[in-house]
């Protein structure tokens, strides 16, 4: 701490006192010491409304301003005080509006829990996040901005979250709608490339039911469309393929990656693979990986 010496007592004083000495001069400082010496002083910021902030009707005014719709930030600025004071006086919940904390309530019928959780997950580098149930069908998200987040990240957080939430809702719908198809493709690829009964039979995909597609697509609260009939057929096919895998020798290692070369292919690499029977008739020819040097 910077130290100087009082001109009168020659005792060391701290930097605040030294600044006061410079601003007021020794005579006025001495008068200040006589009046307030030893007491803690609050000096309002320049431009603040000192009279209002200490007025005995201050709290009534705060409540009145809030009823008129004046924002917490404006009241705080008008009085030259922290936003916590008008929040406290107007008996509004403290956590809902802090400089570093954002809280909002979401309708779970519009934004399913999984989509909300996925959305907040994206922000875990910039904020500490919490999802809680505010009331039935209402989710409350509380995000506390991390101290090291960039100022621009703080201001954009809410808007970015809104957009991310919408993306996550759509992603969830795509995933749910197509889950069976993806499972089927992967299972089929892992088992073999043989044509499935479904495709061989050329079963046509069901036509869209009337009213399924909404041109404007704004009513997101509408119940999810029923799964297409094709899913039921795919599910049976997946079960059949999985049963095929499980009935093979290599259930624990269906791709045979832990079977030594000589055991799988014989001493001269000619024999047919043993562990991949039932999983894949022909192992694809391996491709040498690219050199992956880390250093030299």
């Amino acid at each position, binding site marked *: 701490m910077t130290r100087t010496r009082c001109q009168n007592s020659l005792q060391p004083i701290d930097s605040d006192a030294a600044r006061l000495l410079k601003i007021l001069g020794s005579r006025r400082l001495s008068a200040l010491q006589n009046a307030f010496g030893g007491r803690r002083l609050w000096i309002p910021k320049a431009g603040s409304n000192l009279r209002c902030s200490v007025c005995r009707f201050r709290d009534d005014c705060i409540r009145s301003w809030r009823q008129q719709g004046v924002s917490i930030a404006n009241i705080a600025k008008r009085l030259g005080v922290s936003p916590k004071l008008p929040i406290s006086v107007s008996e509004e919940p403290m956590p809902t509006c802090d400089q570093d904390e954002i809280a909002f309530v979401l309708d779970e019928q519009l934004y399913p829990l999984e989509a909300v959780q996925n959305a907040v997950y994206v922000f875990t580098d910039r904020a500490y996040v919490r999802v809680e149930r505010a009331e039935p069908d209402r989710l409350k998200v509380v995000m506390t901005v991390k101290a090291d987040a960039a100022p621009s990240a703080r201001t954009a957080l809410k808007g970015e979250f809104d957009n991310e939430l919408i993306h996550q809702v759509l992603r969830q719908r795509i995933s749910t709608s197509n889950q069976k198809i993806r499972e089927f493709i992967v299972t089929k690829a892992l088992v073999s490339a043989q044509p499935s009964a479904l495709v061989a039979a050329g079963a046509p995909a069901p036509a869209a039911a009337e009213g399924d597609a909404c041109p404007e697509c704004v009513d997101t609260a509408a119940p999810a469309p029923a799964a297409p009939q094709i899913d039921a057929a795919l599910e049976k096919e997946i079960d059949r393929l999985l049963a095929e895998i499980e009935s093979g020798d290599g259930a624990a290692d269906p791709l045979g990656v832990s079977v030594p070369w*000589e055991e799988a292919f014989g001493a001269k690499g000619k024999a047919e693979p043993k562990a991949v029977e039932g999983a894949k008739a022909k192992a694809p020819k391996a491709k040498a990986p690219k050199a992956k040097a880390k250093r030299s």
Partner: protein
Amino acid sequence: MTAPAPTAVPVLDPVKTGPFRFRRVAGKLLVTNDLGRHQLLDEKQFHDFVTGGLKEGDPVYEKLKTDGFIRDQMDFDAIAAVWAKRNKFLWQGPTLHVIVTTLRCNHRCLYCHASALGMADETTDMTEETARKVVDRVFESPSSAITIEFQGGEPLANWPVVKFIVEYATEKNKTAGKSLWLNLVTNLSMMDAEKMDWLLERGVNFCTSIDGPAEVHDKNRPWSSGASHAEATKWFKVIDKKTRNKMFRIDALLTVTRLSLGKPVEIVDEYERIGARGVFLRPLNPYGMAVATWNKIGYTHQEFLAFYEKALDRVLELNRKRPASKPFFEQTARLYLAKIMTDDDPNYLDLRSPCGAGIGQMAYNFDGSVFTCDEGRMLNRMGDDTFLIGKAGEGTYAESAGHPVVRALAVASNLDNQIECSKCAYKPYCGICPVQCYKEQGDITGRMPTNSRCKISMGVLDLLFDRLQDKKNEKIFRSWLKVRKGDNEKAAALYQRG
């Protein structure tokens, strides 16, 4: 506050809209699917696609149909076959086998990920006995293609064991009949004509580090006995000349440090000057010496991406000046582009799902210890044995390949298990490194949107899709892959129901 009405969320057409992922890129919406097929749509096209509003005959609809996005037009046989082709590495087993012949090194690289030791300490030299056990274990891999990569330290510091492994592996392969590749990762400072000729006669590939112009390279890679850059570039040119038109060759790569950030153009130009086929720009990783020197040579992902963008644009600029038959590539971009523009997977072990740890590669330390991967071995040097899965000569190959750690890493790096990756538009082109997640974020699963490697990957892919919108760039990218325009369209006919 209450969230606004979600008017922007369209209702899916359950009949027309097949599986896809999306992301905003370059002012458009990129849609991709599990086959790596992609298309950039404007807002209206995207909305119409999602809601089933696209009409047959519309070029956008036809392209989406061709690429397997239209649900009621999918040929499951063909799609499953292409899926299997893109993921064929799942059936291969470990193909890359990293062997550390010594931890000794005569360089003191600021970022040394391997925590190399001084030249006097011979306690970390692999013995011939251990080397024999390691090669025996390598050949137990069920893969029909094997790459043995010599790493260190500086592998040439233990030259007798390098020679032994080359000879023993070659001899052993006469029986096994595999496709055998040998790569020597070396700083070239201990190279001489005799060693070079011996290695070239046996078809050994070379890979070295050249960190750009001398003023960057020699600061990044101090060598007490001389100028590292001068020595590396001298031998690079000699070996490059001797391996022209051969199956084996020499490649170089660089690790980007803070010292490189201001010189993207100079670095690219340096690679062209020495006659390299391209440049491989790789970010720093949090292993070994790089942890201690991070404050001096580290950077943010934004800084790396700004550097990378300038370097990539310089590479594209050079390509415009060169004949189309002699392209000059950037290797990171090339790996991604192979996945974006073709149905083939380059089997780059860091860009797979699951990653290659234990199922695509294994790393063998000087004492025969087996690790899931080179990164796992690097952590071992930092005092962490988490990724140790066995020892050559003890136990069996199956015990290592089926080790619980290998299984855990496969589950963790499977992008379908990752909260964000499973829904990310870049999933078909990407991969995570669970060892880096473990080092950076404390667990092998990691948290992808907030992980530095993820941010760099997404930034590079954003840049590539942006540049791909320019037809001239697309032509250059195709030349890097030797993919002719129309090849994908021919293959794409597969996806249409006959």
